[in-house]
């Protein structure tokens, strides 16, 4: 074997060994931007399982604590601070308050995204809107007062709870409401409302329902 050929074989062997080494022990990994630097998701927490248990054992039984929607609107109009103290809940610090509300009303408007109810007989104006489209935000997670941010150590898991509650409402509650919500129909509801601004958010009150039935 000539000297040049020997050097070639050594070079190829070294290159192959280096390639094999780098394959098994790479110096860096290329990852998509949306995965770069993201904290590891909690592997122990299962939001679906958590909400499954929360829904049947705490949320539905807790509905009995809801304040009457018309009473809440009147209380907020009279004195927002007293209404917040008496019926509202907030998570941490901030001006956004959540309320657990219930009521029975007659459908006076049925739109693609919400069903409008009048809560008093003979009134044709919408007094509350029940959301029927995609549900976002933390109204139900934070409105009942049954869940605390410090009960779940990871804030991303706490947000996942909210998403799962909303998904469950979309799948299990809203289809029945959309089906039965023809103008004139009577609807009983329990749900949660978010009020960030008392000047605008009461006209009308928007509610994310988690119980809807025809009385």
């Amino acid at each position, binding site marked *: 074997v000539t000297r040049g050929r020997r050097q070639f074989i050594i070079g190829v062997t070294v290159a192959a060994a280096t390639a094999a080494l780098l394959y098994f022990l790479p110096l860096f990994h290329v990852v998509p931007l949306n995965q770069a630097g993201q904290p590891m998701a909690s592997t122990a927490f299962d939001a679906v399982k958590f909400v499954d248990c929360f829904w049947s054992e705490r949320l539905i039984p807790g509905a009995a604590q809801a304040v009457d929607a018309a009473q809440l609107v009147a209380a907020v109009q009279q004195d927002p601070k007293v209404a917040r103290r008496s019926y509202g809940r907030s*998570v941490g610090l901030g001006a956004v308050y959540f309320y657990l509300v219930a009521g029975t009303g007659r459908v006076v408007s049925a739109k693609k995204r919400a069903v409008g109810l009048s809560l008093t007989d003979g009134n044709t104006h919408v007094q509350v809107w029940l959301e029927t489209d995609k549900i976002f935000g933390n109204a139900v997670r934070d409105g009942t007062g049954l869940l605390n941010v410090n009960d779940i150590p990871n804030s991303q898991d706490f947000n996942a709870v909210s998403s799962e509650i909303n998904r469950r409402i979309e799948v299990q509650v809203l289809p029945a409401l959309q089906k039965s919500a023809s103008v004139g129909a009577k609807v009983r509801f329990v749900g949660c409302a978010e009020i960030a601004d008392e000047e605008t958010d009461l006209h009308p009150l928007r509610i994310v329902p988690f119980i809807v039935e025809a009385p």
Partner: protein
Amino acid sequence: MNRFVPGIFTTLVLTLLVLLGGCGTPAKPGTPRIAVVISTLNNPWFIVLGNAAKEYGTRLGYDVVMFDSQNDPAKEAAHFDNLIASGYAAVLFNPTDADGSIANVRRAKKAGIPVFCMDREINATDAAVSQILSDNYSGCVSLGQYFVKQVGESGKFVELLGLVGDNNTWNRSKGFHSVVDRYPGLKMVAQQSADFDRAKALEVMEAILQGNPTIDAVFCGNDAMAMGAYQALVAAGKDKQVKVFGFDGADDVVKLIAEGKIVATGMQFPKLMARTAAESADKYLKGERNLPQKTPVAVELVHQTNVNKYGDYGRKEEK
């Protein structure tokens, strides 16, 4: 030779003055000292956070010294070495890295110095005494809903991300995407990091606009980047066509919202967070141990209809 002596003397005096200046006002004997460690003072929002922490700490009777980590975990670690060695009573802390900063907090804890996180989270619940954090995810859910309302259910948009190692970057992005991703007509044509930096956002946005000249909106993970993106759009003559959304509630963005040039932002409350952190530290140093590990601070949506209620990094009536 003699003519150099006054020069050397002056240089020594000036160096000493700069070094002592960096250490802040000398402590009054017996007055406990609090350190305010801020991730970067190269961003007006963090200057407000740091100054407010210093002001509230001083009002509560402490000598307060501020440290700038310049977004550098190594500088932050050096600050902690310094403050541990100097015997500070507590730290009001705005971390540079959710994971990387944990070790600093643990070292302080081991040395008996309680740490109170402000605005930015660390990925540990057993290190800091408490963490006062903006509810970034929920704030961006609201912003995402308003985005859909303003842009519509179809269109092309760009997202400028903050520092990829920071939890806030992803909590904001995830909150926003939890809404917009449910509208298949809304297409994200580019997603790039501009490190929460105005100059970098300008640069990144200019490059994106070359490849995507017909976008409808840009969502920015903070207001400094929103300002940079807006500047790029003005330069390209597209500021009337592209809707800009920010996050923070910085004064310059709030003013541009009032003028109809930027669509919306999420108001964080740096002064409220700083005050809560300072008060928590004071309570802890006076013996209170029942402090919540995490206190979320709600983020409020600021848009043209309600912009008159906001300014000076908060709600106007709170001043």
